[in-house]
């Protein structure tokens, strides 16, 4: 039995948001009478955790605990326009819209607090725990609960805000392709280690060690979810998946999860990940979109590791055991 190990690497970047921009999203925020904040969107959570991160962004901007924020999405009768959840745009576009809306709401909240405390709004800070106080004088304080009550029932003010983010559309020059595809890019580099069975062409991925530059990890465990899940999908694309196993021949297309091949829980490598943050100038707290990118660097890294192991280049995806075996046979022929 011959098993050969190899390692390979790949480095990638990934644009945040719809290519060429022109993809707005809006957010509306209002305070309830008791000082909770409702963020109204028509944005979709596919499982990446959009609702959670949007609440965090709103809370950070308002200066309140995340638990005090309610995300109300996604109903087109109530939620303002959102282009959609794709193109690694959610955190960046919707997050920026929420920051804009939350700043407006925060200004009203501080105005009301200032009137209640009989101080200048410019001297007020939020403590992040549900109260507002005079900078340097924590004892001169009012709870956001009381601010919200006062705003509604005493001052007749709506603590609310409107936000939109639009990266203006870029139109490529037809001749040269001069364009602005995106304003910020996330980055990644993966080192893959594989073991190739030279008699069967089977490839086992032993480890994926990656560095990801994400702008700012707004919720580290959720970034990690994207990283691990994405890296798994990268393995899957590299070695397993297709709806047309004999492309361009249309035969034998899988119709269920038995036939549609993806790595099982017994095919997992060791994952090791490092996160680097270079905040994006226009990102919400510097964040970039990372969800899509995480699947990309493992694919070529695995392909390069296979070459390193057995000297076979499989330049077509997926790299099936059969393709590897045929490559090994051709080398030995």
């Amino acid at each position, binding site marked *: 039995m011959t098993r050969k190990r190899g390692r390979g690497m790949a480095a990638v970047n990934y644009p945040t948001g719809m290519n060429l921009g022109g993809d707005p999203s809006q957010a509306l925020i209002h305070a309830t009478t008791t000082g909770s904040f409702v963020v109204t969107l028509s944005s979709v959570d596919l499982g990446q955790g959009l609702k959670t991160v949007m609440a965090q962004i709103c809370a950070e901007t308002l200066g309140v605990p995340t638990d005090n924020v309610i995300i109300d999405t996604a109903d087109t009768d109530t939620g303002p326009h959102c282009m959609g959840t794709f193109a690694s745009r959610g955190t960046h576009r919707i997050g920026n819209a929420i920051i804009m809306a939350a700043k407006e709401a925060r200004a009203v909240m501080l105005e009301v607090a200032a009137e209640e405390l009989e101080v200048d709004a410019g001297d007020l800070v939020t403590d992040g725990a549900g109260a507002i106080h005079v900078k340097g004088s924590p004892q001169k304080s009012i709870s956001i609960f009381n601010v919200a009550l006062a705003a509604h029932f005493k001052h007749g003010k709506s603590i609310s805000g409107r936000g939109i983010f639009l990266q203006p559309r870029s139109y490529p020059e037809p001749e040269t392709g001069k364009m602005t595809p995106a304003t910020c890019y996330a980055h990644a580099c993966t080192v893959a280690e594989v073991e190739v069975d030279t008699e069967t062409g089977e490839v086992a991925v032993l480890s994926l060690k990656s560095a990801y530059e994400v702008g700012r990890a707004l919720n580290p465990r959720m970034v990690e979810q994207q990283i*691990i899940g994405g890296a798994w999908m990268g393995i899957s694309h590299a070695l397993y998946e297709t709806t047309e196993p004999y492309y361009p021949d249309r035969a034998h297309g899988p119709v269920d*999860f038995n036939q549609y091949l*993806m790595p099982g*829980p017994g095919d997992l490598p060791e994952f090791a990940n490092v996160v680097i943050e270079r905040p994006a100038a226009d990102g919400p707290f510097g964040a970039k979109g990372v969800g899509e990118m995480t699947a990309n660097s493992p694919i070529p890294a695995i392909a390069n590791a296979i070459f390193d192991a057995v000297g076979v280049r499989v330049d077509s995806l997926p790299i099936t055991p059969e393709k590897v075996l045929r490559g090994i046979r051709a080398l030995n022929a």
Partner: protein
Amino acid sequence: MTKVPVEFTLNTREQNEFVETGSTLLSALRDRLGLYGTKAGCHQGTCGACTVIIDGEPHLSCLTLAERCQGKDVTTLEGLAPAGALHPLQQAFMDGFAAQCGFCTPGMILAAKCLLDRNPDPTRDEVVDAISGNICRCTGYEPIIAAILTAAQGMRKPARKRA
């Protein structure tokens, strides 16, 4: 459509239902009883999202005819823990960030429960085997495996204390 009566135990309660002949347990749970915790992912027995526990063993409710549940003991995710409480597996899935879109989560947790009920001290390979019929497209499985091992550890601790 002919309907036939079925009596079974569902989440510890006696359940008497008239079900259409040839209809599946999955359909009975979702369409008749409103137990949406059981998910329909493929209707072919290939994704595991519809996994329920019947007489202590994991079953694919999409491939189980409802009327064959006569006299059986069926547990769905809704019956895993008393209202307001969480089973250690549920807690471990939460703490371990082992769910993303959440669609495979009910089946995963029930498949894992069957393992831990039989084998409170599983190896990683045994955990991998226990969820081998359940597809997850989001997490890469690693956090799920870790959560199940964590839950097992947590469930063993009190037992050791007693001993």
